[in-house]
């Protein structure tokens, strides 16, 4: 029996992936690493470079994203991630770093990707007042944008008000 015979349809309308990019937030993309190691290396990095606070997001099974709170210049940011690559000997993180260096800005995914769901917040540590707060606001915006992509004509008023508040306030701070 074919797909049509079973009454099933092939999934259509694939979407682009949405990510959050900036230069001053220290971010790590740790794939294929158990959570206890992710936590250990994140806290060690935080203490080594006095990054004040962090959050850990689970992006898929045994893959995690880490976002630190203290803003740093791009050169310092790259130095910190390179240090983590060196001490953890994590090949995937090193590849990710090289890609971010080519782009001159680091990106973490905020929307769903293929069969993976959007990253979800699982751990908080220390202060969350600066970059973590901005990241979470932008993540909210990204999620709303991903919803809007599905059907632009059917968007809700709440979503648009979210864009106005989040986007404008963030950008006025950035500029």
């Amino acid at each position, binding site marked *: 029996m074919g797909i049509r015979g079973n009454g099933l349809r092939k999934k259509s309308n694939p979407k682009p992936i949405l990510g959050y*990019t900036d230069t001053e937030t220290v971010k790590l993309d740790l794939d294929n690493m158990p959570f206890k190691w992710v936590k250990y290396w994140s806290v060690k990095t935080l203490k080594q470079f006095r990054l004040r606070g962090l959050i850990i997001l689970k992006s898929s099974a045994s893959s995690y994203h880490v976002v630190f709170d203290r803003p740093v210049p791009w050169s310092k940011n790259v130095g910190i991630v390179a240090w983590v690559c060196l001490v953890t000997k994590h090949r995937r993180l090193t590849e990710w770093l090289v890609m971010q260096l080519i782009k001159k800005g680091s990106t973490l995914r905020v929307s769903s990707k293929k069969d993976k769901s959007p990253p979800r917040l699982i751990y908080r540590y220390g202060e969350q007042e600066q970059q973590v707060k901005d990241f979470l606001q932008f993540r909210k915006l990204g999620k709303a944008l991903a919803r809007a992509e599905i059907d632009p004509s059917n968007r809700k008023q709440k979503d648009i008000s979210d864009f106005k508040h989040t986007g404008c306030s963030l950008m006025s701070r950035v500029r």
Partner: protein
Amino acid sequence: MKSIAVYGSYLARIPVKQRYWVKRADGVIQRYWKHTKRMKVAEMSGRYEFWGKGKDLYQAVVKAHKYMPKRFVNVSAEKFAEHPEQYGYQGKWIEKEVES
């Protein structure tokens, strides 16, 4: 600067390039490329980096659903929303493994 990244693989209609040679005055045969009127569907990957206000970001992301980026495009959301055809080809996104 903070920005929203829209990225992935896509199928787009792009003009077919054709190569031709011209013999220069100094005797060197120089190769050139020209865009023909023929179009082909190609699988590529690309990326937009949008910055701007929330409303512009919304409009830009909705239009990015239809216009595929010409490789790496770093543009203000407001400019892109006004003239998306300048920054992208018409096409559709496909689900394929890409790195961030």
